[in-house]
């Protein structure tokens, strides 16, 4: 057997640490500002969901599910699952988790849609972004927690930051694909009638890419929910934290309750957004 020479040892870890220190020293103020902004958005979302009377949300979800899924049974089921979360005594924690998901989806869309559009209009840009997205998605999600922690300290902000990084790739990718899939003939016709870039984008490409983009939003939402649970390790309150505590104390029943609530919320969000995406515009 031949051992790999010990002398060859690229100190990538040292470099990355160095870069992080440099980033912190140089852009510390910027990240503070960014953190404050994110916190502001998050706190408002959270207080909204905590303020929202539970019957309104349960009914609202039921009716929305009934409308988009086209079956009152589905509406009843979705409302029932949400009611169950409250019935287990986890309503407030559930709302905190939901707020974190909603806030990170909002930021993800604000970043992802323009990036996807830019990617669709430039092959060079696509070639640059694609491997980065691949990396973001294959990197174990825990890895994001560390730099987020260093940049923003413990708490909700790094949790949200890590969630966004993990959840944003699908919406970028599918916006890009959706726009690129629009038939070249149709684009040519739009050009022939003297349309500008923005007119083609908003009148032709975006409406035709809409179903694909909605699938991207659905995936982003699901990934955000998955990450939010993990992000509780660095201090985001919510159902994830409940699971974490249950693991630490080996309380199987408590962990099961919180886990079940996460599953229910995932089903509700997924079914509703997926139905919105696949619903044919009448």
């Amino acid at each position, binding site marked *: 057997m031949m051992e790999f020479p010990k002398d060859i040892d690229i100190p990538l870890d040292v470099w990355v640490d160095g870069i992080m220190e440099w980033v912190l020293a140089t852009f510390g103020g910027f990240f503070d500002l960014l953190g404050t902004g994110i916190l502001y958005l998050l706190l408002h979302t959270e207080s909204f969901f905590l303020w929202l009377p539970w019957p309104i949300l349960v009914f609202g979800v039921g009716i929305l599910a009934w409308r988009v899924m086209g079956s009152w049974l589905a509406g009843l089921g979705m409302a029932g699952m949400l009611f169950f979360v409250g019935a287990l005594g986890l309503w407030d924690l559930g709302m905190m988790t939901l707020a974190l998901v909603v806030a990170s989806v909002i930021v993800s869309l604000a970043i992802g849609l323009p990036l996807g559009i830019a990617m669709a209009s430039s092959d060079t840009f696509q070639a640059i972004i694609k491997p980065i997205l691949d990396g973001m998605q294959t990197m174990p999600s825990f890895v994001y927690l560390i730099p987020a922690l260093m940049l923003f300290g413990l708490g909700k902000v790094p949790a949200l930051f890590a969630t966004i990084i993990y959840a944003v790739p699908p919406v970028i990718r599918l916006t890009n694909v959706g726009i690129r899939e629009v038939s070249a003939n149709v684009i040519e016709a739009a050009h022939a009638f003297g349309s500008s870039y923005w007119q083609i984008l908003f009148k032709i490409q975006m409406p035709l890419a809409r179903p694909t983009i909605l699938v991207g939003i659905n995936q982003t939402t699901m990934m955000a929910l998955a990450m939010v649970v993990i992000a509780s390790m660095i201090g985001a309150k919510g159902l994830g934290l409940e699971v974490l505590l249950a693991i630490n104390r080996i309380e199987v029943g408590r962990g099961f309750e919180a886990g079940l609530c996460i599953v229910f919320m995932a089903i509700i969000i997924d079914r509703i957004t997926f139905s919105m995406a696949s619903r044919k*515009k009448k």
Partner: protein
Amino acid sequence: MEKIVIEGLYKIFGPHPEEAMRMVRQGRSKDEIMEKTRHGLGVVDASFVVNAGEIFVVMGLSGSGKSTLVRCLNRLIEPTAGRVIVNGEDVTRLGKRALRQFRQKHFGMVFQNFALFPHRSVLRNVEYGLEVQGVDATTRHEAAMKVLKQVGLKGWEESMPDQLSGGMQQRVGLARALALDADIMLMDEAFSALDPLIRRDMQDELIDLQEKVQKTIVFISHDLDEAIKLGDRIVLMKDGRLVQQGTAEEILTNPADDYVARFVEGVDMSKVVTAETIMKKSDTMAYMKTDGPKAALRKMEKAGISSLFVGEGGRLKGIVTARACRKAADRGEKSLADILDTEIHMVTLDTPANELFPLLADSPHPIAVVGDDGHLKGVIVAGSLLAKLSEVSRNESGNGNSSESGS
């Protein structure tokens, strides 16, 4: 009036067309250039003029560069060299913004695959061009409704394109182009995807519509019958080059080379050859007032014919035969009135040959070909009609044979 002038237009596909351009100018072939430079020839040295108000057909087999050519007119494809002058303005020099405005104002385009916007209703498809120009909602709604009525789609405004048949979809395509009220229509194989019956209807409707709207139409087709039917003038393309241009009849009766001749084969000549081509030019005739049987006889002898048309006050009245004239002269009659046969057929210069056959079968006399003013231009006898048609078709098969032995 010259509407579109194309001067020395080239399109070479590929990132570095310079070398290919040099080879084209040396007269190398498409395949050779492709092999040496990996650049494709789209259009080679095209020059022609399209007049205002005419239907100008660009014809060629697939891959001949005709679709590329028409896209060079509105720069959906950027020409490599040459000039495209529309209404006196050089389109190739326009900046991005000016080009967009120029397209909005001057070019309506209809596509082979319809290329309708699938997410928009029929009405919103037709409104699109005006919407892009920033025209207000009421005006564009009115304009769209008007053209939808013109193309026979009233009542379908709210349908989605995928709910319509192919023929109806292309009517939407046509309406979308007409709604702009641009002065030029570019029609890229507009009817090729339709089945033959519907295609014929659409051709007829286009001709009717053209009489009303009087656009300048550049029509791309691979179908010679369509080209003949629609085209005021036709240009034939092969491997990116213009092979021949002219009226349908000029191309059919006098093909420039083997390629055109082969293309032209299979067209029913009797539909395109007109009375003017077949007739024997003649203005010899007798006049009721001044000529008697003897004078008529003398004219016939001189011209070497056996019957003579008789006119009065510039209009054709009938015909007299040599036989009847001789008998009348023997009887001592002074007037042609008694022997005049008024049962004659008159046709105009542009009557197609296939309409002449029944007329000839119907009457023992030759057919008179008259101009718009009613004056005699020439005569057609059964013999000359058949001779002319066989001559034209012999030309064709002759060319066809020589090309076969050549290849």
